[in-house]
């Protein structure tokens, strides 16, 4: 899988040669566009990462988890992954940190560990994707994006529990 990038680049270069593209001119022109893209993303990213860091530091996320835990317990949902379900859409790095914490506390082959792994593998950092893509093209009104995206995340959480229970016998 690591070879995909070099192979992809080689393929593009061969393709460029065949199609008689002026390779380096094209490359530098494209990379220059990349600088503008980066400058456009920067403000969005700084703002959102600061906001998410503040939310974590305030203890509000921990408090909310405490409120939800009794409900998840009664539904057979492993309470150990509740913080991850909540943090997963917000922070990729944060949820990876939580994932390693789960492996340490419950073990990677435990029911909770497996559910957390499936959740990590089948979801993305929703808010990050929304910020990057809409931020890059200056979209202010995102309409029903969040509802659809978070419903998918919620589905993934339920499916993680169901599939691990059915296919891996807990």
């Amino acid at each position, binding site marked *: 899988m690591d070879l995909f990038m070099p192979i992809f*680049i080689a393929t593009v270069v061969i393709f460029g040669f*065949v*199609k008689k593209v002026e*390779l380096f001119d094209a*490359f530098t*022109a*494209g990379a220059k*566009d*990349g600088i503008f*893209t980066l400058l456009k*993303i920067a403000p969005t*990213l700084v*703002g*959102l*990462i*600061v*906001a998410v*860091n*503040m*939310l974590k*530091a*305030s*203890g*509000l996320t921990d*408090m909310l988890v405490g409120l939800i835990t009794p409900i998840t317990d009664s539904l057979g949902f492993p309470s150990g992954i509740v913080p991850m379900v909540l943090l997963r859409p917000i922070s990729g790095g944060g949820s*990876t940190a939580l*994932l390693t914490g789960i492996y340490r506390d419950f*073990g*990677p*082959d435990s029911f909770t560990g497996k559910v957390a*792994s*499936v959740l*990590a*593998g*089948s*979801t*993305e*950092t929703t808010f990050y994707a*929304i910020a*990057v*893509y*809409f*931020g*890059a093209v200056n*979209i*202010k*009104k995102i*309409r029903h*994006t*969040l*509802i*659809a*995206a978070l419903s998918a*995340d919620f*589905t*993934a959480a339920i*499916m993680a529990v169901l*599939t691990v229970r059915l*296919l*891996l016998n807990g």
Partner: protein
Amino acid sequence: MLNYIFGSIMLASVVYGIFSGNGDAVANSIITGAEDSVKLLTTMAGMLLLWSGIMEIASRGGFTKVIGRILSPLLKRLFKKAGDDEKALSFISMNVSANLLGLGNAATPFGISAMKELRRLSGDSDTASGDMIMFVVMNTASIQIMPTMVGVLRQSYGSTAPFDILPCVWISSVVALTVGLTLAKLLNKEKS
């Protein structure tokens, strides 16, 4: 929407942080958050410039059209306007194929190019079009064939079969993606 999310997250954090005695932590998180975000931008910078350059070679050579043709039958059905636009569709399909292979760094520049095309198709409005929402939702759900990161992490914590979760990951992501895309389509009340 982003205005409300941003504002309420910050307000709630400050109010709750002070109220719960975590005021200092919140103060610190502002500084480290700003630093972290710039670190992320600098790590992204190299890859973003590189891929933008490579993409330009590909696009000048017409490579995007080739990949677009392979994935287009499926994507054409999902995207209302972009479905008939070769350029937009090819960026979308390159983003999707990079995502499938778990190359987030490669997928992002493709995705941003796709969004630029979608904005052009929507007549440069600052409101998200149905196609944009469809595309972003596709990117907020994971469509990875091989979640290597999770496998490596599990292995390093002593898992006996780090990739035994693969079928569960595939089923979960396909079902989640289907739910997301179905909602994106159903909730779209835009005139066609």
